[in-house]
């Protein structure tokens, strides 16, 4: 196990070096001035190059969709473009000031050796008349979307000063009708919903997928033994391990920030309590000892605290404690029902489900001020969690009688919906920043 982990770390590092070595250039931070529609006006010129051989993916279109989806950019209508440059020499800054673009993206996709593709792109600041980024990638056809997302991440970071999350992935559970019964799947897809991969199929429910901090494993709860049992599965090669199958509930997995431990809920001693398992030797430490329900543990990003749900005060509310179980304090006071908290990357906020008058909304709790900010008006929200850059909150909700995923920017301004053609989708979990995808 340990050896495998070390190997994995090495592989990840190698990928990191290969993919991001060229990133160490000066970072130019652009302050975004919020307009009426809020987004930075950006011109994305359709990529040139292909000729007769057409790539399977329109890289520029994927980039444009990514940037538009973030809510921080407004891609301009191509009909107003007065020129269509595909390389550096063709760029005339004046053409882009006319259409009020603040940034410009150009590029090309050309056939390369062995059926691969060479993708080039450049990003410009129109007012400073300066190139902000320019990269070239050579990839197989099935990696073109991945390259497009990397380009989107670079553009996002150059222009906002924050890392983008377009190359991250989301894990979620689907439920489809299978005759009189249901079939459940644990799936992983790109952050825009493309390239879904089924990690596990089951005739019994699956819940609570949780990514390891290195993005290589998912812990989850499966009812395949007709009771809640906790598993861990490697998403690269599919191997899986049973983590906990004691009497009663084995559930609510949450990784420590260093990936060495798992907080979980076990009711083996009669009622649900929070434990921490050291993964190297499966040693368990019990953190709570209370006749109430204690569940849904989540680690603070500094690894020093665990927040959890408890109904020890009569109704479910959020509490926090040190990782040794000491200094338990209640943190939510507003609302009848607060549960399933998870921290923002800076540790200053919790996103949680907040209920009142029978309606359950995704909400934000600002820890310092104790201000609770309800983010939605849908009544059946579940499982909110932050994007790794903290800009979005992804949660499950119900629309037209079906389970869908939704996201809302942490300022409440941008909202999206992710749904399946058929069936329900639920239990979303946003991966950590993607460090395991080779670029070439």
């Amino acid at each position, binding site marked *: 196990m340990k050896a495998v982990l070390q190997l994995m770390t090495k592989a990840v590092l190698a990928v990191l070096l290969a993919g991001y070595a060229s990133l160490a250039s000066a970072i130019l931070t652009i302050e975004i001035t919020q307009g009426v529609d809020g987004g930075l006006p950006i011109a994305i010129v359709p990529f040139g190059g292909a000729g007769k051989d057409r790539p399977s993916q329109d890289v520029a279109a994927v980039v444009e969709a990514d940037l538009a989806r973030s809510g921080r950019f407004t891609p301009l209508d191509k009909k107003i473009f007065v020129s269509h440059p595909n390389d550096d020499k063709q760029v005339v800054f004046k053409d882009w000031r006319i259409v009020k673009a603040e940034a410009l993206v150009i590029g090309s996709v050309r056939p390369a050796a062995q059926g691969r593709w060479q993708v080039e792109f450049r990003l410009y600041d129109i007012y400073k008349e300066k190139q902000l980024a320019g990269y070239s990638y050579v990839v197989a056809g099935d990696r073109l979307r991945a390259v497009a997302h990397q380009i989107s991440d670079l553009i996002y970071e150059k222009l906002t000063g924050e890392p983008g999350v377009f190359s991250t992935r989301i894990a979620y559970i689907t439920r489809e009708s299978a005759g009189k019964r249901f079939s459940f799947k644990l799936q992983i897809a790109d952050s825009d919903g493309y390239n879904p991969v089924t990690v596990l199929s089951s005739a019994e*429910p699956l*819940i*609570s997928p949780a990514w390891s901090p290195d993005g290589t494993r998912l812990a989850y709860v499966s*009812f395949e033994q*007709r*009771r*809640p049992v906790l598993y861990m599965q490697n998403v690269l090669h599919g191997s899986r391990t049973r983590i906990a199958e004691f009497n*009663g*509930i084995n*559930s*609510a997995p949450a990784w420590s920030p260093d990936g060495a431990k798992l907080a979980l*809920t076990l*009711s083996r001693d*009669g*009622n*649900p309590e929070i434990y921490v398992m050291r993964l190297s030797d499966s040693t368990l430490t019990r953190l709570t000892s209370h006749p109430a*329900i204690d*569940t*849904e543990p989540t680690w603070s990003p500094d690894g020093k605290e665990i927040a959890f*749900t408890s*109904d020890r005060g009569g*109704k*479910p509310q959020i509490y926090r404690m040190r990782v040794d179980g000491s200094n338990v304090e209640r943190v939510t006071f507003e609302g009848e*029902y607060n*549960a*399933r908290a998870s921290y923002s990357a800076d540790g200053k906020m919790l996103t949680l*489900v907040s*209920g009142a008058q*029978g309606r*359950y909304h995704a909400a934000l709790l600002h820890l310092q001020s104790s201000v609770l900010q309800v983010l939605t008006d849908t009544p*059946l929200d*579940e*499982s909110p969690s932050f994007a790794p850059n903290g800009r979005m909150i992804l949660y499950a909700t*119900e629309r037209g*009688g079906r389970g869908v995923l939704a996201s809302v920017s942490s300022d409440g301004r941008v909202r999206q919906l992710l749904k399946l053609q058929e069936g329900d989708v639920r*239990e979303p979990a946003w991966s950590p920043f993607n460090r395991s995808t080779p670029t070439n």
Partner: protein
Amino acid sequence: MDKKIFLTVLSIVALSLTACGGAESTKPGVDDKSVGADAAGTSTGTGAEGKALDTKADLLAKRRVYFAFDSSAVDGENRAIVEAHAAYLAANKNVKVVLEGHADERGTREYNLALGERRAQAVERMVKVLGLTADRIKTVSYGEEKPVAMDHNEAAWSLNRRVEIIY
């Protein structure tokens, strides 16, 4: 028209009255097809003073007991149902029972998993008091994962907050 049929009619009337009384935790069992518009019609003339009791067989036909929101209290008719099953199991010592706890979809999945367990344990405590030994009882919670009613309204939720008595 013997005594047994008469008793059944009486019990239907009693059930209808209970349902009208609006006690939230005593929803009619979904297995019980006799409680319908026709059955309610037969109540004419029997009078509200009739205090009928469910027969043992009626209670044993019900395999689900229901709960109020975020509650694990076994109330009213639900209590009579559990007692009837406990009596049957006490008399049939080779039978084992599984108590399967469930919650409605509101609130979070993990909290509901714990709530389903708490409901199953509430029924378990009752049947233990009534003489069943621990080795014959198994409890399991499915939380909100296995609803019997798929709608997103109180009618569906009240049917989903349940413990199933399986043997």
